[in-house]
């Protein structure tokens, strides 16, 4: 799993020529001290948006300003290519080098499409895949971009359902896993959900090379309002998934589980009190496959749960106000909050006074 992340020394040496040279002394020093580098979108206290690279102790290494609210960041560590997507229904994604070698660029969604906020690189870093909405036809698509050619859009494939959100690439390098949340939206109607009565969320496994639908996994009909939104790879050909419930607030459906092609979706049966603490809403999910655990966060319930990846048993629970971003940090997890705080397994790190962290935290080096 650690191989996914750029070696810290490599990051530092690269940064030494670019970011670090341009960084304020305090920031450069922070980068030298750190064990790992993370990225997250943020809003600052004056209402400005951006994406930041930060250390585990909360020092900001670099900032990329954004014209509107960002969502997830995806990074191809070997090439340092990174992209931050606008939050849905945004039409902008900003590309940057994680080592700051070149100026950020912009991808503007093609006509009739908007981004959903997530995407993933091919293993060689030459292709970027982004979850998008073909909103006139209420169809989910995956936009394909040539990262070697200025992120030119070279095609699209069906996501296999309505409302694709998070996506990732399995270890085989060809299977995209896409969480089709099932919710129809249209820019003319803002973020209003237009099909709650008929929504059909699914988890689709799709061949990135030709768009072949390898398998579609669905929830039981009684859970058709359980929107599958976020994913974390299990490192063994499967994924953990996390959901947000769009049904009545006093129902308590299961909210997360595990999936693998060729098997039924498996939902984790959490104890009632922990389930209540998630308030029918998981904002982020991350796996620490060395430890065999998976972590989920709920900013509505101010809850962070760490589960046994095999059984779904709750291993630990913490109450952290507005916690949402979550990433493995090698030994365990680093969490970020909408109040600007970071927390790892041991302590709460009084983070930034200026940056309020958005939904997702991604480890990009170390």
């Amino acid at each position, binding site marked *: 799993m650690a191989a996914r992340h750029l070696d810290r020394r490599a990051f530092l040496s690269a940064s030494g020529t670019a970011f670090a040279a341009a960084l304020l002394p305090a920031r450069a020093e922070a980068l030298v001290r750190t064990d790992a580098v993370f990225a997250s979108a943020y809003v600052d206290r004056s209402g400005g948006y951006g994406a930041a690279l930060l250390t585990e102790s909360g020092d900001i290494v670099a900032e990329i300003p954004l014209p509107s609210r960002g969502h997830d960041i995806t990074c191809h560590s070997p090439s340092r290519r990174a992209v931050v997507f606008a939050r849905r229904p945004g039409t902008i994604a900003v590309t940057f080098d994680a080592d700051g070698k070149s100026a950020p660029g912009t991808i503007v969604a093609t006509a009739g499409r908007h981004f959903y906020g997530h995407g993933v690189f091919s293993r060689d870093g030459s292709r970027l895949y982004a979850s998008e909405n073909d909103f006139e036809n209420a169809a989910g698509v995956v936009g394909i971009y040539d990262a070697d050619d200025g992120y030119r859009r070279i095609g699209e494939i069906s996501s296999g359902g309505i409302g694709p959100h998070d996506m990732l690439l399995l270890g085989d390098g060809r299977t995209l896993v896409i969480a089709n949340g099932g919710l129809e939206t249209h820019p003319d*109607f*803002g973020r209003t959900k237009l099909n709650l009565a008929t929504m059909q969320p699914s988890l689709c496994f799709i061949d990135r090379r030709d768009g072949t639908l390898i398998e579609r996994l669905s929830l039981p009909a009684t859970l058709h309002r359980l929107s599958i939104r976020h994913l974390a790879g299990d490192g063994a050909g499967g994924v953990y998934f996390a959901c947000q419930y769009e049904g009545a607030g006093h129902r308590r459906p299961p909210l997360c589980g595990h999936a693998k092609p060729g098997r039924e979706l498996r939902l984790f049966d959490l104890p009632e009190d922990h389930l209540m603490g998630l308030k029918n809403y998981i904002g982020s999910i991350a796996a620490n496959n060395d430890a065999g655990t998976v972590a989920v966060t709920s900013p509505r319930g101010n809850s962070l749960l760490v589960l046994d990846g095999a059984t779904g048993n709750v291993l630990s629970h913490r109450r952290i106000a507005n916690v949402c971003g979550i990433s493995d940090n090698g030994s365990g997890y680093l969490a970020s909050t909408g109040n600007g705080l970071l927390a790892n397994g041991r302590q709460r790190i009084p983070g930034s006074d200026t940056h309020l962290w958005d*939904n997702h935290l991604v480890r990009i080096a170390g």
Partner: protein
Amino acid sequence: MSLLVSIRSLAPTIAAGILLWCVCAGPVSAAENTPVSAVHKAITGFVLPAHETLSQQASALKEQIGRLCMTPSSDALDDVRATFGDTVVAMAAVNIVRIGPVLENNRLEKLFFWPDRRGIGLRQIQAIIAKQDPTATDPARLAGKSVAVQGLTALEFVLYGDGAETLAQIPDGYRCRLALAISTNIDGIAGDLLTAWKASEGFAYAWQHPGPDNAAFRDEKEALSALVSLFSNGMEYYDTIELGSFLGVTPERDRPRRALFRRSGNTLRFLQAGLKNFRQFYEKSELASQLPDGSAWIDDAIVFGFRHGIAGIESLSGTAAELIEDPQQRSRLVFVRTVVRGLGENFGIDMTAALDLTANFSSLDGD
């Protein structure tokens, strides 16, 4: 608080006695049985009456359509259409209570399938009429069909769309029996909603009595937060969907044919009723009394916003098309939109902060 104050002023022995009584018999169960004040007032003062009115209107509509089918006439059709308008107005009040029973069993979508950007409901109800689908005139079987053909938006087409004039002419005709089945379905759902809100152990009780064992509301703040959210989300919905569906950012982007209930000419009545309902909901809940010292300005801002927003929308007249084709009317509608946005911030930001309720930017409407 007052209990503590009074204890402090008493002789220690008596105080000890009172404390003992408290531990054995008093405040624990009393606290559990005391409903959250603003939620209680919102339910008894607004939610229940709103649902009773909708239920009564829906029954009246069903009966009138029954009479129209037996003895069709222009007058009978006019009566039905007038009652339909009153039912739409009654729906405007239920429409702002988007919590609890209406979110169960797709009730909201069944009552009121909108927005329908792709015209699904229109296509489906036209197909039913064209085929004279016999299963659609049976209310029980209609209830198993697409949610888009079960409610007020479908009934509007039956009563006002192409061919509706036959309702005044053909006794026991297909179209009238379809209208009767839809209105029967609406009446049934409205009745179910009212029953659910009145149920002694139902959602209303849970919302008023938060606690550690309550699946939906663990503490008073969560219950209060859900109430305030109805206003902040409701204002956003009114702005972006109910107005925004037909009132464009610029006149070139206006789309009068998308306006809600435009076919029956009830767009403005629905919008007027909606904003007035929000004010009544706010007043009945007495949310203002929850505001801490120093935050009274928020109530002032809300009262001001409602007064001017309602005055603005009440000064308008005509159909959806007339509202936006007349530049003066359109500019007043834009003014209303501006006021409603301000109200959204008063509830979603100002009041939420003043009451110390959770409203983190990561925790809002899902991503």
